[in-house]
């Protein structure tokens, strides 16, 4: 096991090095030198430009700049935002809980509906239920989620008035300090009446929008995985023993069918974070996805660079954890070459 762990860890090292190299090159490839841009500023002398260039380390040879960049990253220095002048890491960590809360609720929504739907479709294979559920899953799988979000806002918020249109908190009615950064927890901690309900209402639409594609994927995977497991000998044995259908499906079949499903959920973190960019933009959700998009329009390249670095690092780490857990459950993976 320890060798498996070490080998898996070692495999991520070159990926990280290349990631650092790519993000480093990126800021040098975008149009507009950060110093050249300031040439037009009033009262800026060539000497001051040279000084700025020196301060930012841009007069150093390129390999030295790269080493400095890596050295900074290893010490938690992801650069400073041009616009807000705050460290990127700090900005990222302030916004990340909002994204985390949203993705967590989206996954909860997707799993709680997707798994039962997949099981039902598999057990009643070929029936009207199966066909309807798989039709819905196909629609969800093909959904342009930005459009889906707008339609839901139109119907749920504007026509029916059930949910708020955007943001995390109704700032006219409630205000609380971010203690943990998670609106669901902070609203309870604030002790204000109705604050928790308000936080939940704000989460409903974004979670549905972000959870739609994973929901469809989970339902389809659960179905095919269940179909496979239901053919297995041990399920037949369990049936032959005279166990109730519910017990056979719920205990014997589902438990084994879920292993590949859970793995694929874990490996979908990247997809979720990509979806979060669109979802957060539509719902003005103050998370890292919206921040990234805004960094582009503000030409805040250090923020973009640091943000992508951090997001990719999250995905790599989560994938690593999923891999390790999978190896833990399934020894065949662990001992494979």
């Amino acid at each position, binding site marked *: 096991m320890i060798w498996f762990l070490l080998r898996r860890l070692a495999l991520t090292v070159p990926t990280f090095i290349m990631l650092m190299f790519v993000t480093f090159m990126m800021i040098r490839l975008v*149009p507009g030198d950060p110093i050249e841009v300031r040439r037009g500023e009033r009262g800026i002398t060539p000497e001051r430009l040279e000084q700025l260039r020196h301060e930012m380390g841009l007069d150093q040879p390129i390999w030295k700049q790269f080493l400095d960049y890596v050295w900074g990253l290893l010490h938690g220095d992801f650069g400073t935002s041009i616009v807000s002048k705050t460290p990127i890491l700090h900005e990222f960590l302030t916004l990340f809980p909002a994204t985390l809360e949203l993705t967590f609720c989206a996954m909860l929504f997707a799993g709680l509906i997707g798994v039962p739907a997949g099981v039902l479709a598999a057990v009643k294979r070929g029936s009207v239920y199966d066909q309807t559920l798989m039709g819905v899953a196909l629609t969800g799988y093909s959904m342009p989620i930005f459009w889906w979000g707008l339609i839901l806002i139109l119907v749920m918020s504007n026509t029916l008035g059930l949910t708020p249109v955007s943001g995390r908190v109704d700032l006219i009615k409630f205000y609380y300090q971010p203690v943990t950064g998670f609106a669901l927890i902070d609203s309870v901690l604030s002790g204000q009446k109705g604050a928790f309900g308000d936080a939940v209402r704000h989460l409903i639409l974004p979670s549905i929008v972000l959870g739609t594609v994973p929901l469809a994927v989970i339902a389809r995977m659960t179905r095919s995985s269940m179909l496979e497991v239901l053919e297995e000998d041990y399920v037949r044995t369990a049936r032959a023993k005279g166990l109730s259908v519910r017990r056979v499906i719920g205990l014997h079949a589902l438990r084994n069918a879920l292993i590949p499903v859970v793995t694929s959920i874990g490996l979908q973190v*990247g997809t979720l974070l990509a979806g979060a*960019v669109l979802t957060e933009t539509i719902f003005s959700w103050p998370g890292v996805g919206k921040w990234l998009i805004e960094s582009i329009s503000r030409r805040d390249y250090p923020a973009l660079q640091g943000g992508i670095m951090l997001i990719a690092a999250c995905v790599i780490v989560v994938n690593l954890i999923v891999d390790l857990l999978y190896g833990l459950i399934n020894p065949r993976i662990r001992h494979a070459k």
Partner: protein
Amino acid sequence: MPSDTVIASAAAAPPGPVRAFWNAFSENRGAVIGLFAVLLICVVAALAPLLAPHDPLEQVKGATKLPPFWVEGADPRFWLGTDAVGRDMLSRLMFGARISLFIGLSVMVVSMVVGVALGLAAAWYGGLIDVLIIRIMDLIMAIPSLVLAILIIAMIGPSLSNTIIAVTIVYLPRYVRLVRASALAELSKDYVTAAKVAGVGPFRLMTVTVLPNCLAPLIVQAALGVSDAILEAAGLGFLGLGAQPPTPEWGAMLADTRDLMLSHPWVMALPGLCILLTVMAINLMGDGLRDALDPRLRKS
């Protein structure tokens, strides 16, 4: 016994590969519907200049924000109404099909060609080249697809052709990994060894002997890749990072009309519906292809 030989020869004549494929494919009703929907969309896209009643960029004076035909106050000249500046929605949607299919197909073709080349190279050479290619693909996959596309667009600027470049890079790893894995599996088989012994050179061996046997999963991936590319490109267009206005790209059309959403919902609803239906049709067809081409999944 003569009667036996007749039966045996009738049974021994298997349907040709195309026929067998079509038999398996047409068993799936959804797949056939998907195929016909895709064909219909292709025809509309190809004939858009002939079919469209108006120029998609022409702004008709005094005909702004007209509703579609099922809403009161519709103008018979504009079946699906007009947008904020008086452009015909139907014509714009038809030309949008052109752009979306063009994006989807070019991404698919380029990433497949490059992916096959890299995948075969990784499988054949192994060693350092293999490690290098696979590491780079891992890196691409570590960055969320849309975020990577945004990063690339930030470097090369937003436009239609740059959308294609960005989405191609994002989807490249799927093809490379798929081709490499199936080529590696094929390389260990006897017929490849036989070809090697017969003196077939590496290029011919990989392209003529090995590649055709890796095609089935590749075709499925290519079909589903088109729909993913269309969705990704529409997402970029919606964020203002894809095709630029006034190009009638479906995603960009949606972004254009967000402020009209409440008063004139159809201007927002129609382009999204087109994206959904196109992607659904391709996915339906792709699922059917997978069931027909992949014998392991044919049963379920």
